[in-house]
């Protein structure tokens, strides 16, 4: 892990401001540390060697109090700055990741693992709090404080300076060496720990099955046995990896001891002043403290950086290219020629070469087995996937050359499982809001017409609140058929020139099925280019042409 990922500075500009603040606060802290040691040692020497009374050293005691108070306030201020910066950084990362993930479309992380991405950009990045409030400031202190202390020591006692100057660089050196030696073993061990946790969760998930086969009770011993096995092998690795902190502690404490004994002996021989000796003794441990604390906060920091790294991975996925050509107005002819798609890393194409022409005013039915390439074809038509072979031409221009926003604005799309939401993501959107998604300027009468075209007029007028009826956030309260018809209304209100409809594979009620067929016929009659994915004969019967879509290599 790099202590400070440069990408964090690049993607989250707030980090830069914080680094400047952390360095400034670090310098002040270092100065306070030295002043405090100075004041404290002076008080002690004044009393013990010169016999000053409390009132005579009162000013200095107050100074010690003030300095420690100032240090407390300073570290409080550092944490406040850290939490504030972390809040800003999290917002920056979240916005960037979300915008990018959305732009990557349903085949990117947003579509394949929406819950995972949500956790990552919410709870995941919260781990950055610890990185900012503990690790980064400590890292800055670990650079500034030892240097400041060394410079101060230099003016006091050469021998102590040499001892500290030699041992301090050894600490990171040892950490790196031992870290390198144990890294692969530790990594492997973390993996086995994950396996251990996985074994437990696997058994819990399979409990009903285990119980059916009468094996549930006996697995408790298996959990204990596996846990024990992993514990002993983990301890074997920890014995070595803890050596790095042992080396660190040994270096730090032994060099403090060395300094103490060396100044003590020289003091006894009259080669050194008491005040200097005490000052040196108070300063020496301060040089090592920030380095030790950095190690302590490493784990919490790694968690936050891990989340940031996964966000960078999203941000660094290149966006699909977007052509700049605007769609011409009027009817749309779609030419699909030898169109095929193979997912990266797969041998078999998900969509075997397909050729057809969809004319304005006609209905093209796509049929085929599930998993047979129909949704891949739709994804290509929507511009979510760039074809690996062949081409889609819209009125003569390749889809790749057409601006995707201009292309999509001419499409009415009814997905197989539409998500009915309002554009402000409110939890209980009204029917009107749902239909207006993407067409915010549609008038009430346009919304009503679209709903009527989708066969919902009677049902809506029966509702006391009509268009303003709020839907449940999870779509409950609506039948699957009503859900589908609302999505049709949402597509029709756009006055689309192309209608893409993915018929639900599960059976709808008869009323809804009839409404879907009627809406498709009406759209074609208006001159729309209609392409439907058909799962039932009713939609095939009204089609002008049918295309069997297949996957795999064709003979």
């Amino acid at each position, binding site marked *: 892990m790099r202590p400070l990922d440069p990408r964090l500075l690049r993607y989250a500009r707030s980090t830069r401001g914080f680094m400047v603040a952390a360095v400034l606060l670090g310098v002040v802290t270092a100065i306070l540390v030295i002043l405090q040691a100075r004041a404290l040692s002076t008080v002690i020497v004044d009393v013990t060697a010169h016999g000053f009374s409390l009132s005579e050293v009162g000013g200095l005691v107050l100074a010690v109090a003030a300095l420690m108070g100032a240090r407390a306030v300073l570290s409080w201020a550092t944490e406040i700055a850290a939490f504030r910066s972390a809040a800003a950084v999290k917002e920056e990362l979240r916005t960037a990741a979300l915008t990018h993930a959305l*732009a990557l479309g349903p085949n990117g992380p947003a579509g394949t693992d929406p819950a995972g991405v949500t956790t990552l950009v919410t709870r995941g990045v919260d781990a950055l709090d610890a990185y900012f409030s503990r690790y980064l400031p400590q890292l800055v202190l670990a650079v500034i404080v030892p240097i400041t202390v060394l410079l101060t020591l230099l003016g006091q006692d050469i021998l102590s300076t040499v001892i500290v100057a030699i041992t301090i660089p050894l600490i990171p050196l040892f950490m790196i060496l031992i870290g390198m030696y144990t890294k692969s073993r530790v990594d492997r061990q973390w993996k086995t720990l994950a396996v251990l946790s996985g074994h437990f969760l696997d058994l819990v998930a399979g409990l009903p099955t285990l119980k059916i*086969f009468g094996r549930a009770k006996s697995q408790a011993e298996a959990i204990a046995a596996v846990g024990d096995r992993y514990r002993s092998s*983990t301890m074997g690795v920890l014995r070595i990896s803890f050596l790095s902190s042992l080396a660190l502690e040994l270096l730090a404490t032994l060099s403090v001891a060395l300094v103490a004994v060396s100044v003590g002996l020289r003091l006894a021989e009259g080669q050194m002043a008491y005040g200097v000796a*005490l000052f040196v003794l108070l300063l020496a441990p301060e040089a090592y403290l920030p380095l030790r604390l950095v190690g302590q906060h490493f784990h919490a920091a790694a968690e936050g950086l891990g989340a940031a790294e996964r966000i960078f991975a999203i941000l660094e996925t290149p966006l699909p290219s977007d052509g700049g050509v605007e769609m011409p107005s009027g009817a749309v002819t779609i030419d699909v020629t030898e169109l095929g798609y193979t997912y990266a890393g797969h041998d078999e194409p998900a969509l075997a070469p397909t*050729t057809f022409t969809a004319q304005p005013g006609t209905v093209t039915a796509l049929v085929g087995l*599930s998993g047979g390439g129909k949704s891949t074809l739709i994804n290509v038509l*929507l511009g979510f996937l760039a074809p690996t072979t062949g081409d889609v031409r819209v009125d003569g221009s390749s889809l790749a050359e057409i601006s995707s926003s201009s292309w*999509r604005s001419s499409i009415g799309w009814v997905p197989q499982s539409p998500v009915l939401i309002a554009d402000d993501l409110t939890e209980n959107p009204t029917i009107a809001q749902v239909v207006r998604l993407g067409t915010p300027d549609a008038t009430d009468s346009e919304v009503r017409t679209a709903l009527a075209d989708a066969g919902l007029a009677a049902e809506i007028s029966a509702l006391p609140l009509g268009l303003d009826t709020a839907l449940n956030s999870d779509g409950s309260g609506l039948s699957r058929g009503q859900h589908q018809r609302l999505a049709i209304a949402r597509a029709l209100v756009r006055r689309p020139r192309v209608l893409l409809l993915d018929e639900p594979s599960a059976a709808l009620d008869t009323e809804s099925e009839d409404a879907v067929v009627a809406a498709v016929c009406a759209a074609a009659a208006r001159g729309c280019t209609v392409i439907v994915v058909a799962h039932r004969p009713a939609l095939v019967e009204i089609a002008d042409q049918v295309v*069997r879509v297949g996957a795999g290599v064709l003979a």
Partner: protein
Amino acid sequence: MSPVRELWKAMSAQRTELALAAFVGFLASASAIALLGTSAWLISRAAEMPPVLTLSVAAVMVRAFALGRAVFRYLERLLGHDAAFRGLSQLRVSLYRSLEAITPNGLAQFTRGDLISRLGADVDTAVDLPLRIVLPWAQAILVSIGTVAFLLWLLPTAGVVIGIVVLLALTVMPWLVGRTAAHAEARLAPGKAALANAVLASLTASPDLLVLGADRPALAAVHAHDERVTSLGRRESVALGLSGGTGTLFQGLAVVAALVITIPAVIDGRLPAVMLAVAALLPLALFDVLQTLPGSALAFHRLRGAAARLAEIHEAPADDSAQATGRPGEFTGLVVDNLRARWSGAEGDALAGVSLSIAPGERIAIVGPSGSGKSTLATVLMGFLKYDGSAVTCGSEIRALDGDDLRERIGMMEQSSHIFDTTIAANLRLGRLDSTDAEVWAALEEAQLAEWVRGLPLGLDTEVGAFGTRLSGGQQQRLALARLLLAQRELVILDEPTEHLDAQTAEQLDRTLFAATASRTAILITHRLVGLEAADRIYVLDGGRVIEHGTHEALMSRDGWYAAARRRQDEQRSMAELIDVLPVGIGVPVPPLARG
């Protein structure tokens, strides 16, 4: 008992090892304090220029304490981690036992949420209890007592005053830090939840938003939530940042108090001058040790949530069906009469008077719309749900039989049987541990999976991946079928085994299922009606009642629910036939076949 104490009880059987770790940790902290104290004495004494020889003991001690601090700390970490891992292992076992006792019905209340992912994360958090809470506290208290005791001996007033400051620090510091963090988080929580909901909503709807061109307003809506959370975070930073600094504040208080008390004592001779530095520096060193406590308070705050969730599992009441101890007799079929059953917490009966029977060697099918009680019936027959009325098998009411014994006679294949993250062989032998390779292969043959397994480089020893993800859905169910066949149960219940498969795979699996159950006593629960001509009887369930039953022919002529549903499914098949005759990848006029 508080959840945290309960958690502690569940993972602290290694008391001796933990006590040893705490003691060694105390020695490490004590060495750190003694190192500074002895060094201060050494220098102060040296300033009086005594013969160098009188300093040698102190010089040796300084080095010994330096060594001790590092070595004791290393030992503490090893002992502490070992005890913590043992505790974690115990915790897993006890959680597993609690979950086992409530499987399967009580489990539903947990699986509804995200039990699995939460359980993993919560158990991982539990390791903080020994490592970040108990051990730091134990040694903080021990080392505080030790230091204060030494000061009391040195100068009683200093001991008393520093003791009070330490006591204040030990109570106020963690309390303040834990409380402010909890408060700040509570204020942040609703905003964060709203933000997470908005993020999830926008991501789930991403295709809709993109195609409809509503992605910008949606992002703006998310951003509005985000800004609210950020400005709240800014406001709460003052409270959240409190943990940094409080330690230094108390340290300063202690050092200044020590100076103010010991300086007059030195002046009027109550305290030897060399001891001033010691008395002033000991609190400084002590509070370096106590600096870990604010972090520990935060860890405690985090742990409480995890502990409460884990306690919910420990406290979930076990099924009372587990209590029966009757031994099953010979299997002579199954007779169900006026069976009623209700899920706990449900309003109405899931089964409202079902009667049916099956004789050895018969195959019956149970069909009906979703929610009609089909799976509830299976749950009752497996001995997992209380019922009224009668369900007799093996010479006894099911409710009177020991559950594990009952399930040695009746086996079941679930909608999505769990495939364990191990080899194919181990998954199969879950059915019967002592089965021979020949029996395993025979079961695979019957499930029509043998050919595929033979083609694998590692054969039976192939790892299937977590949740069987290296297998297709159809292969997973075939593996589950082979496992059930290998178990040689006298009655097998197949509960919608094709539910989550695509039509083509489902049809292929159906054929296998029919063939494999031909010579067995079987109950087929299904929503796919094709092929039910082979069943001895078909029962149609609706609203928890049998609305019609009989053979396929009888039900078709009755023209009720079954006949209508079957015709719809046949229509689907004609669609499949239509697809079959079409050329792939080319647009053609709609063939007349479909219009017929």
